């Protein structure tokens, strides 16, 4: 038989203590004789063929887009819209001469550094604002004001303090990506399930345990949704920073190729940015699926 080794809160009068608890004795065994036949049959059959057909449809859409691109390129000519083949040639050329690898490297550094920094700052701050209601309520209007404000307007100020290099760029990305993560984290904590909190409190949970074991996991889907919005904004702000501060990275190449009407390499950069965005979103979606397995049907 099993017993809880330490029961710090066992509070019983000695003479009737042992008889008072819901103890299981030798006959306890299984009482679930009436097994309600209900198994988890929702998964399995059906999911797999659907996935294949979605993949096929996506390939069809991709081919369709390339076809439209080809037709439009043929109609306007390579000087306005380069054909897919011309673009592919340009991709090989500017990859071989080192322009793309070095630009991609510096863009990824700015993007990832700014984005990760925004996560590191926004999630704890949001949790803190949600956990301490007065603190959160006091900061809320300023948070809203900052999130609605075009962050581009800070760039001159950032340049004065941080110059034109990586620090300034990372700061622009950080400011851009932080707000949705902060707002979502805060909202997630505020929307925690009151019933679950009461259940935990009744079971003797401390306020810290309630925060850690109920509010935080409850806020997780909100936090990850905020991270996805933040990732998109981080990429946008990376390019903005590369255009408005020292011209470098993929944003820099956009500006150089665009201003000199070299449309084929310009298209290469545009497509590369799309691929970075796609890779980031896919990664976050995979993370979301992994971390929120049980949330599938919301509260129970």
């Amino acid at each position, binding site marked *: 038989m099993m017993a809880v080794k330490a029961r710090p809160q066992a509070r019983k009068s000695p003479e009737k203590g042992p008889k008072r608890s*819901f103890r*299981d004795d030798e006959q306890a065994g299984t009482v*679930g004789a009436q097994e309600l036949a209900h198994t988890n049959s929702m998964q399995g059959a059906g999911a797999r063929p659907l996935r294949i057909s979605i993949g096929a449809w996506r390939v069809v859409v991709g081919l369709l887009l390339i076809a439209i691109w080809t037709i439009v390129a043929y109609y306007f000519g390579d000087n306005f819209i380069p054909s897919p083949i011309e673009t592919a040639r340009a991709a090989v050329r500017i990859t071989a001469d080192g322009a793309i690898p070095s630009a991609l490297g510096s863009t990824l550094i700015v993007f990832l550094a700014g984005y990760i920094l925004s996560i590191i700052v926004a999630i704890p701050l949001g949790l803190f604002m949600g956990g301490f209601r007065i603190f959160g309520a006091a900061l809320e209007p300023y948070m809203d004001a900052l999130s609605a404000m075009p962050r581009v307007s800070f760039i001159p100020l950032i340049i004065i303090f941080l110059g034109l290099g990586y620090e300034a760029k990372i700061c622009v990305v950080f400011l851009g990506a932080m707000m949705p993560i902060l707002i979502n984290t805060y909202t997630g904590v505020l929307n925690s399930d009151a*019933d679950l909190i009461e259940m935990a409190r009744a079971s003797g*949970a401390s306020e810290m345990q309630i925060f850690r074991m109920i509010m935080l996991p409850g806020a997780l889907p909100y936090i990850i949704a905020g991270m996805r919005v933040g990732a998109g904004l981080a990429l946008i702000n990376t390019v903005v920073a590369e255009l408005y501060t020292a011209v470098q990275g993929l944003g820099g190449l956009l500006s150089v190729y665009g201003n000199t009407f070299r449309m084929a390499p310009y298209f290469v950069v545009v497509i590369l940015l799309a691929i970075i965005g796609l890779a980031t979103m896919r990664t976050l979606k995979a993370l979301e699926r992994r971390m929120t397995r049980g949330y599938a049907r*919301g509260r129970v």
Partner: protein
Amino acid sequence: MNTHVPQAEAASLTSAAISIRNVSKSFRRAESSPPVHALKNVSLDIAPNSFVSLVGPSGCGKTTLLRLLNGLIEPDEGEILVDGKPPMRGPHMGLVFQSIRLMPWRTIRANVYFPLELQNAPLKDCIERADHYLAMMGIAKFGDAYPHELSGGMQQRAALARALISQPAFLLMDEPFAALDAQTREFMQIEVMKIRQNLQGVVVFVTHSVDEAILLSDRIVMMSPRPGQIAETLSVDLPHPRWDYDVRANKDFVELRRHLWEGIKAMVVNDPESEFYQRDRVMRSTTPAGG
């Protein structure tokens, strides 16, 4: 099996496991609105190792009384003693709610050992004991499933396992089966009766169903609304185990049921705030068609 019971604990002042003395509790919906008397001058003793049901129409303070016993709220007046001490939240109280309240992000097993985890029990013990109680409730193979993958009845069995895992001296159940379908509900009632046969402790069971109260209880406390008060307490002396025979056909059962239903019906039709106020004038039969 033995639990470590502190030897120096003071003995209870009364022989009752739970003693409620002249307790009143009121709420305000808003600052300006007049107080609603959820409970007024309620006194009740609950004997050790007994199963007590609280029945009565909506607004009679059943749930308020349960929350007072658990220490989630405190009385405005009067005194409540649980084992001779004021109510305290914690592992000695097992709770089962109508809204099942499993954490959707945890597996069934992790939901069940949650109360042990709150006391910082080692994970190995948590898992071992959770599996034991899952087996007791007949849902051992669903330990790794997530709540949404289970039916309502199995979710509620998991919630029962969670309530029992800290070996509470008191089990408080707030309309636990109200959201289940009629058939699942009957099976869950049998589960509770079987738990009662094998385990000891006080159960306080809130229900709207007169049948359920008679079926499960040693004692029934009928409460009346606005203000919440105890109208009557009755003991149920039907032979155990009650799942072995057609207890509903027993003439004592029928008599108790009629008595309780007449009482509740009178309260409801005479309550100006009830939606059925004075509806008895158009009602023909005096007994309901079903429980």
